[in-house]
């Protein structure tokens, strides 16, 4: 059974009196355990697609189903809950909360989900160790390097054991060497059973994927 099914997604934005068609009839199916890369030039609609798949944005038409649940049937509160418990997000600019430590950033989604404190603390240790940052738990986010911040962001995305991990240009802000570390982490995640959908310019990251979806001008041009 497919984990993610997107059918005929379209997204239009009004801009300066005109309508911008960001997505035009995009369909996508992702099976559990798959590693899918979405590639395309800037402005082709990759990030818009990812936001719609993650329930952050609503399409102008079409539907998305995650683990059998249609997103357009959910209220805003239910969508938020879905993102908290079934999805994990990794952003290009990491988006860690600078006033919290690495450990607290990872702990945040679990606290929101109501996980008991002792269990949270233990899982934070596991996740940071998994991403190779066990010794940086008590460092403020602003004290970490770019690569370390992205690894903390990945740990945060894994906090509530999501069914699906969505990443938007995860190596976009990183140098080649650091990007390579993230690449290896994603490979390991997929090997350990995680389902990944990654939007990227990075050819190395795309090459690691089991399937590459090409987009251009809001359409899927090749799978």
């Amino acid at each position, binding site marked *: 059974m497919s984990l993610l099914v997107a059918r005929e997604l379209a997204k239009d934005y009004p801009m300066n009196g005109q309508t911008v068609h960001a997505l035009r009839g995009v369909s996508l199916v992702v099976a559990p355990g798959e590693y899918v890369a979405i590639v395309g030039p800037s402005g082709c609609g990759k990030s818009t697609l990812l936001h719609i798949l993650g329930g952050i944005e609503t399409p102008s038409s079409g539907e998305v189903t995650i683990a059998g649940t249609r997103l357009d049937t959910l209220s805003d509160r239910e969508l938020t809950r879905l993102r908290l418990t079934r999805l994990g997000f990794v952003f*290009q*600019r990491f988006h860690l909360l600078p006033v919290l430590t690495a450990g607290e950033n990872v702990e945040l989604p679990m606290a929101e989900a109501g996980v008991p404190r002792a269990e949270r603390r233990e899982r934070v240790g596991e996740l940071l160790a998994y991403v190779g940052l066990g010794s940086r738990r008590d460092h403020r986010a602003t004290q970490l390097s770019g690569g370390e911040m992205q690894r903390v962001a990945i740990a945060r995305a894994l906090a509530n054991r999501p069914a699906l991990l969505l990443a938007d240009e995860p190596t976009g802000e990183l140098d080649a060497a650091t990007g390579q570390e993230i690449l290896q982490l994603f490979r390991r995640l997929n090997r350990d059973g995680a389902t990944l959908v990654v939007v990227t310019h990075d050819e190395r990251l795309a090459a690691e994927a089991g399937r590459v979806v090409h987009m251009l001008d809001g359409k899927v041009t090749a799978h």
Partner: protein
Amino acid sequence: MALAWGVRSLRRHPLRTALSLAGIAVASAMLLDMVMLSGGIERSFERLLLGRGFQIRVSPKGTLPFDTEASIAGVTPLVRDLRADPAVAAAGPVLGASLYAARGDSLLPLFGYGIDPAAQGLYALTAGADLAPADTSGVILSRPAAAAFGVAPGDTLRILGGLDPQLAGAAAERRLVVRGLVRWIYDYRGQRSAGLVLPLMQRLSDAVRDDRASFVMLRATSDAAVPALVARLRARHPQIEVNSITELVAQFRQRLLYFRQLSYILGSVSLIVTVLLVATLLTITVNERLGEIATLRAIGVSRASVVRQVLAEGAALTLAGAALGVGLGLATARYLDAILTSFPGLPAAISFFVPEPAALATAGTVLLAAGSLAGLYPSWLAARAPVAATLRAEAT
């Protein structure tokens, strides 16, 4: 965790937060002062009146005690009748009038209290001995009076009353022994006062012919008996004014309406300033952190959690500012009280700024609520921040 994020964000801009705290502290101090002022003098006045336990005042019809130079005639039978009431524990007549005392070749004015030492609520003994009930050769003095005349307990003082400029003489004169020094409860600072037994005071002030007194103080057997006693006395003696302390305080409150209204207005302004300051600071910081807010929403933190953290931030700011404001408020209250208590003729025991724990607790709660509510608009901004658009803007 979301709450920790909100409160810790205040540390990101220390100068901004410090200035906001300073502003809230000053506003809190002002609110604290106005709460103390709003009922302060009434409470102080009530405590003064009840200080010796006399809950009722009997005065000439249509007047308040010592409000005019009016007096009650035939006070001796009146007091006898009042004491006969089973609810009256004590009745003390008082006659106030101007006297003079000799200092060398000159005469200095004194304020004289004619009292019944066995039933008085006007003074507390501080040195020497009190007057005996029928002591017509003794006098008690305030410390300023004793200092002005250079006398101490045991010394003699020549006291005159009823000065006649045509005869260049006094209608009555006595050489009295200073029995003791007292603190007169209703005296203003530096007032020169003397206390004599009532019959002697009546002779010195030419009030003996009609057996006059300025007013009578009554102590009821219990506080619960006061309302019924007042009603009974009013019915029995329609020619005099009978007031409980509660009623006197209410009339006094009307005379000092200005201070109460000023305290309400300035207190409201303080609250408004606090709300504006907290709301402005939070709105700006929310706008600066829209990216973080969008991230929180994207990873599944609910709108309610985001709203809670903004409100918590406002509450934390207000709480910290108010804590700083307490010390400042007490200091400014002391300064302002020193100004207002310099009113001429005001009893030295009166204060305008009186800290009542219940009122201060209410003010603190209202301030905290106001500061928290100030976060409503910025929390609404945070709640409705467009997640996708914000993330897109952050990425570019």
